[in-house]
């Protein structure tokens, strides 16, 4: 399908050059993987006057672990995450998330940062970042900004990004205690799909939990009521039942072409129960390998 919309294309050699052209342009779009942007231009949903390609900026292409914090640069693709040694060792649940994103071809181009900039409700990166209390790092001509992931998402397809800014990456602080996680994503078949429900659970060795939902909410949310109920408690079947009762208060699913509201609520409960069990087992060293689907 041809692209009707006309735009200029620029591939800056440095971040400052990118920021300069961005400041000068009226309606620039930033291109990293392009898996969302190019489709949106094709469908005339996005009509940028300038496309700024940041793939050449080496400083944005890294994944590094420093000061107990993981930095995922804006150019890092989901395939990069899957292949990263640091991630497999320290944040295996990120590997688990990345493995469920789209298909190999898309993962070779699509980025975490692009995913949270598009900020569609079914994105896979959102629940992950808010569960890890991640920070979104931005650069602009006026300097750098850091925004907690929970404040980054404002509404579907709407973020705290301001004109002239580039997201340079996201930082995920390593929890202070040992932890394990589980990512559960609902699709309509085994092949790649956009989530109808997704859920990330972190179980920490101090007896606390971090639970976040996506796809069943306009923007990803931490299930604060459930976390409060579970934190510090012995996890018993009756406590799990109580937690499941709270799920409907935490999420706001809709009926659309992919699933009904009823099935999403039903599955959120099933996925929560299985994900919680898997995360605890992994914490205790007797869980299934990361990458194993719980549904």
């Amino acid at each position: 399908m041809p692209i009707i919309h006309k735009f200029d294309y620029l591939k800056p050699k440095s971040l400052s050059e990118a920021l300069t052209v961005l400041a000068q342009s009226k309606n620039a779009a930033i291109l990293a993987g392009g898996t969302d942007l190019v489709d949106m231009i094709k469908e005339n949903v996005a009509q940028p006057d300038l496309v700024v390609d940041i793939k050449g900026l080496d400083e944005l292409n890294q994944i590094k672990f420093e000061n107990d914090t993981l930095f995922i640069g804006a150019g890092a693709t989901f395939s990069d995450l899957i292949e990263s040694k640091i991630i497999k060792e320290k944040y295996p649940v990120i590997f688990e998330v990345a493995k469920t994103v789209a298909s190999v071809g898309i993962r070779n181009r699509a980025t975490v940062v692009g995913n949270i900039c598009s900020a569609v409700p079914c994105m896979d990166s959102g629940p992950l970042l808010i569960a890890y209390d991640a920070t979104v790092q931005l650069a602009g001509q006026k300097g750098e900004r850091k925004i907690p992931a929970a404040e980054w998402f404002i509404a579907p397809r709407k973020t705290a990004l301001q004109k002239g800014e580039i997201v340079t990456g996201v930082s995920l602080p390593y929890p202070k205690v040992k932890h394990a996680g589980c990512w559960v994503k609902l699709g309509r078949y085994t092949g790649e799909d956009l989530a109808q429900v997704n859920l990330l659970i972190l179980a920490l060795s101090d007896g606390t939990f971090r639970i976040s939902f996506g796809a069943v909410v306009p923007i990803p949310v931490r299930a604060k009521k459930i976390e409060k109920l579970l934190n510090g408690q012995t996890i018993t079947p009756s406590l799990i039942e109580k937690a499941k009762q709270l799920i409907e208060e935490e999420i706001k699913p809709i009926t659309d072409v992919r699933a009904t509201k009823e099935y999403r609520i039903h599955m959120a409960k099933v996925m929560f129960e299985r994900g919680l069990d898997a995360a605890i087992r992994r914490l205790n060293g007797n869980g299934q390998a990361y990458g194993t689907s719980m549904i």
Partner: protein
Amino acid sequence: MEENKYIGKSTVRIDGKAKVSGAAEFIDDLDFGPDLLYAAIVESKFAHAIINKIDTSEAENIPGVVKIVTGKDFPFRFGLYMHDRFIFAQDRVRFVGEQIGAVIARDAATALKAAKLVRVDYTELPAILNVEQALAKDANLIHPELRHYKHVPWFFPKSDTNIAHLRKVRKGDVEKAFKESDFIFEDTYTVPRYAHCAIEVHGAVGLYDNSDRLTVWTASQSPYTQRNLFAEALAPLGLSHKDIRVITPFIGGGFGGKAGVSMEILGAALATAVKGRPVKVLWSRAQEFYNTYQRQGLTARIKVGLKKDGTIIAMDNILNWDAGAYVEYGANVVNAAGLSASGPYNIPNVSIDSVCVYTNLPPGGPYRGFGYSEFLFGLESHLNEIAKKMKIDPIQLRRKNAIREGDILNYGGKMNANGLIEAIDKVEKEIEWGKKETSSDPNKAIGKGIALFWKAPAMPPNASSSAFLKFNEDGSINILISGMEIGQGLLTVMAQIAAEVLTVPPEKIRVETPDTDRNPYEWQTVGSHVTWGCGRAVESAAIDAREQIFDIVERALGKDRKSLYLENESVKSKTDNNFSLKLCDFIIAGIQKPDGSYRGGPILGRGMFMPEFTSALSDPETSQGGHPNVHYTVGASAVKIEVDKQTGKVKIPKVVLAVDVGKALNPDLINGQITGGLLQGIATVLYEDMRFNNKGKLINPNFTDYKIPTSMDIPDEIVPIIIEVPQPDGPSGARGVGEHTMIPCAPMIANAVDDALGIRIKSMPITAEKIALSVKHS
């Protein structure tokens, strides 16, 4: 019987190297040079509306636009079996996305941009979006002119209704038989629409050159039918068949969607508007969904009467088909399914009404299975329900009633030789029927399901095939046919057939895709008939060549032709062990006589096949009297599923399919058909799900929300079982097999779900959501 040397062997595909190396060209690979123009389509926004005015002025001013055409430029009606469609909408649009006009421009982006600027003024009409609305007493007519439409003699349209065709079957005395039945079971099953989802989209490039010759390159299963329909539709412009040439390169999947003529008419028509320059129309994925053909929706009411012992004595089926806005092809799906909707069973008293209903949804048409998948979902589900209620084993019920050779078919003919019972027995054993299995996971249940299937090719009684076979100097062969390679391996099998007759190995035979100027006639590559029909034509061409060879040897060397035979690419004699003449020594050059003159010349075999025993003439009230079907291919399939009671997700540890192919000309290719067919069929039951909004617009014309299987969705184990009860009129005893491998999937899965969970789902698809919510509510 003599051992075959090439038939029955898994010869490696002769087009394999071209495909894996990228040498194979598809329509979008062809280079038409810098003069190539591109067309974009102006499409209807409404499912049903009157077109008041089309304003192209703004679009015409876009630089790069060459020409804009609309319905008034082509006021012609055409169609395959019924002339009910138009090149562009005339005064009325009948589905969302219907073509109203086209913008031809120097590049694709300009064409698309300008097409969006064409203003269409409509008066919206009430849209009829389902069969119930269409059949209601005061329903608006979608085709008020129906009574004037030309159609084949075996269609029976009902004027002043939305019924485009009614196929009635009446065999025996159904009323009396129901009275004599000990049990009667009645239920209704529904099947939604489906899309073929060939990986390659439809495309056509037309060139009407300055010598008044029209060449159209198409992605098609049907080059000759296309040429015929182009000639018919464009006859008012002075074109005749000889002036029209259709060239069909390799295609990336068809599944029936590239049969007949759908969007390709645009390539032909638009070319006449820009004489001297080629013009290309390439569908987007969305257009591929909403403006080609879709598999038709079906509501099937099935009523079965049985004796206490499980003998079925009566069946009364009403099949209401949502056939869409134009039914020029789809009405024949309704027809074919109607003739066979009692399934592979010997039932003495049958009543079937198969009703082709116009709706304001996209045109229905052929899709692998041609209506059989749809009615088998209901029929084979219903038989399991009956078995359950009568406390009979579902396989026993089927075996008891299975059709056998010589049994009387619904139209009065006799059933062909077949291995249905063998298929049932083998499938039963392989799936370990009766062995109850439980999962170690308490959330999961294991179930098994079975379904039988049958299908006949649906084609006009005079559908024919032909072939040319040309020898080359080195003894290699080029075969010219117009049967289409659509992934099934036709080219390879045709080479094997010729190889067997002429003793020339398949690797020395090249078979190319069609060009109607060069390759002889083939009706269409549809209906699982082409290996059978085109195979007979190739066999006959090879025999013709062989006889020419013997003739030359006899004339030049005085050998008794009765003693001659071919072996290892040479002519040999049964009476003279020392005689051996290599084919390459004379099949072009001829044989030299002692006086220096030659006898012979290039060997050129010619073959043709038409099933002269068929007839579509029958009593319209009963369907008795004709012989519409050439043969039925039958089989059985069974599956073991593991279903998660909480999520509703179905996993398939094992599936087995046995099909009576008559003779497996190439077993690997048949195993490929079985694997592919099962995968396609299982997808239609588990997750493919076409959704329209309340305005008749398809809301998931994309792979984001219309899911087709990936490599991750293949069952863990697939067991193909080939049964060979020869088809006497087939090449080496072969009969059709292409479609049959997908059609038992839906009821087989439905039956397995019921076996696992005790839940009967009567509407497709049987998604995880539907299963989980059924469990929750049960």
